[in-house]
């Protein structure tokens, strides 16, 4: 029983939710402990074949390598900036591997692990951060939208896309090859945005097949989660009229199981779910950020003990699900991926200057064509000169 405070305005929230959510609280769904011990949950559980477990490990190691290489490439001046995902590998791989081909994903700018699961060439993730494009993959080819920088905006796109699926008759038919859903990725900071809250309202109102997947990494650049919310984020869903769950975002098994269940609910026509993947941003917000200015290294050290990859490695080894040859092969693959990214990134050509006039509209307008032609003539006027632009 929750004690009623004297005010009469319902339960004392501090008592309901406790003074701290450091461990994720009692509602945290977990299937693999930080120590690598498999635990079970009465409602959410999945039997994982050994091969799938090894796959999770490989996905997470390779995703971390993409992140590490990209961070290094930024330090070497090859990327202008990079949004790191260090520590969030399990949340992203669990969410990414729960998808079916017909599902659709709307990412933020940090979903490199989900992109990996969707088969987006990792090299293409670098283009935005190198400044050579604004996302060069074909969203329709992988059912993976372009990265969205404006915080939370994509949650509305995801909801609208899901409303389109409803109108296309691909929700609740009972055909597993046909029924589809959408995952909207966002973070704890985005949960304060109007667009995210409006997306919740639209999705609830139309019962849209969308999973709102919030990676609560505890930090919105320098601002802690306490600045965004006075209650656990997953609890907000109830106020919008759909279920919310909190999963250990550093536990790839639990994240997979929870996301899969939420996706299935959506595909079945039962509407949206909010999944709060409780995790921690081990790195900086981006390579331009300096977290030592605003957070304690104690916190980071404590979260290191919850590393998403280490616990799977322990689990695989302890149960004999993978041998040394497997771990060596993944390490080799990661090295190769790193080399491919390094070489590929440096070889990415700058875009042609004239390309900035392309695709503003489906057909170039006369006035824009005039500007383009004028600029081309201007550049040509330098050709043959001792110094100048051109290409």
């Amino acid at each position, binding site marked *: 029983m929750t004690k009623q405070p004297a005010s009469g305005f319902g339960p004392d929230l501090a008592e309901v939710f406790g003074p701290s959510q450091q461990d994720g609280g009692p509602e945290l769904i977990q299937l693999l402990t930080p120590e690598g011990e498999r635990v079970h949950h009465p409602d959410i559980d999945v039997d994982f074949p050994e091969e799938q477990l090894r796959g999770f490990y490989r996905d997470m190691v390779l995703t971390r390598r993409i992140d590490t290489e990209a961070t290094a490439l930024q330090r070497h001046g090859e990327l202008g900036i990079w949004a790191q995902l260090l520590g969030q590998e399990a949340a992203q791989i669990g969410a990414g591997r729960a998808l079916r081909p017909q599902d659709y994903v*709307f990412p933020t700018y940090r979903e490199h692990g989900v992109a990996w699961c969707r088969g987006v060439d990792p090299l293409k993730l670098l283009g935005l951060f190198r400044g050579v*494009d*604004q*996302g*060069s993959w*074909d*969203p*329709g080819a992988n059912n993976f*939208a*372009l990265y*969205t920088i*404006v915080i939370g*905006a994509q*949650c*509305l*796109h*995801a*909801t*609208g*896309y*899901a*409303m*389109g*699926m*409803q*109108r*296309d008759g691909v929700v609740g038919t009972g055909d597993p090859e046909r029924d589809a859903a959408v995952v909207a990725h966002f973070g704890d900071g985005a949960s304060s945005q*109007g*667009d995210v809250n*409006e*997306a919740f*309202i*639209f999705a609830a*109102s139309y019962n849209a097949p969308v999973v709102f997947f919030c990676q609560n990494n505890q930090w919105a650049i320098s601002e802690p989660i306490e600045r965004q919310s006075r209650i656990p984020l997953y609890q907000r869903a109830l106020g919008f009229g759909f279920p919310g769950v909190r999963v250990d975002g550093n536990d790839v098994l639990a994240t997979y199981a929870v996301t899969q269940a939420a996706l299935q609910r959506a595909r079945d026509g039962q509407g949206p779910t909010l999944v709060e993947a409780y995790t921690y941003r081990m790195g900086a917000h981006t390579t331009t950020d300096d977290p030592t200015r605003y957070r304690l290294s104690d916190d980071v050290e404590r979260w290191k003990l919850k590393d998403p990859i280490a616990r799977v490695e322990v689990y695989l080894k302890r149960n004999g699900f993978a041998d040394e040859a497997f771990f060596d092969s993944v390490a080799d693959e990661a090295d190769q991926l790193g080399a491919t990214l390094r070489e590929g990134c440096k070889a990415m050509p700058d875009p042609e200057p004239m390309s900035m006039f*392309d*695709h*503003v*509209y*489906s057909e170039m*307008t*006369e*006035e*824009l064509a005039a500007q383009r032609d004028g600029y081309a003539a201007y550049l040509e006027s330098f050709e043959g000169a001792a110094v100048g632009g051109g290409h």
Partner: protein
Amino acid sequence: MTQKITLAKGLNMGLRKAMENDPKVLIMGEDVGKLGGVFRITDGLQKDFGEDRVIDSPLAESGIVGTAVGMALRGYRPVVEIQFDGFVYPAYDQIVCQVAKMHFRSQGKSKMPMVIRIPFGGGIGAVEHHSESPEAQFAHTPGLKVVACSNPVDGYWMIQQAIASDDPVIFLEPKRQYHADKAELDDTVTPDPLFTSRVVRTGTDVTVLAYGPMVKTVMRAAEAAASEGKSLEVIDLRTLSPLDMGPVLDSVRRTGRAVVAHEAHVNLGMGAEISARITEQCFYSLEAPVLRVGGFDAPYPPSRLEENYLPDLDRVLDAVDHSLSF
């Protein structure tokens, strides 16, 4: 077949036709269903096309436009209604950052065939935020196209053409004209292309440019001027982005004088851009500086003052006389 229609009816008929021709066309907005919109522009459409195609939305403009982005990405052609001009601003981020840039940033892979209908302008005695003219803010944004209809026949054709466009179109409707005048619609003729301006009255002394609600005012001014022996050429711009400067430049080269009229604030309004382009391209034809007539650079006033604020026949004629005085 010909019939006499109001602007509201023309838009309603155009929307209906677009929905009949393409099952991917959806309408979404606040009160667009049973009510038929606060101006009744979508009257009867939900009854005939169902709640899946004529969607009453939650009361959230960013949500309307943002979900329409997702629908467009899924292959639909959403037509969203913003209830009043002053309520478009919550959706401004989605329009400017997402709608306008999607085709560009995806290098043409993601099209954004969306129409955002906005009743705009004043003159209906409304409370604040219901009489604004935000067109320049959208015309300033690459990736958007911006058009304004001025009469029932254009309303019928232009809304269909905007819906057929693969680019996002901000579609401005002069709300004070919705139920004002009737015009004869012959739906067997071939309409002018959407992104073209049109000479609606020929003249020799001064070129007067207008769009949306000001076309009617300027036409009345031209009649009054004619009675005083002054010949005004009136151009309905129709498209604000891209601008169709051809007919404008042709006209100004003949008259040597130009006046641009709009309800929007003069500072950095459409008139400023049009004036710059005329000056750049017809400098030696000009007998007078290009003059602007518009709303003052003050917030839209309480409605009892709107007749003072809005450019009327006399202020247009005053500007014409000023132009002729050079």
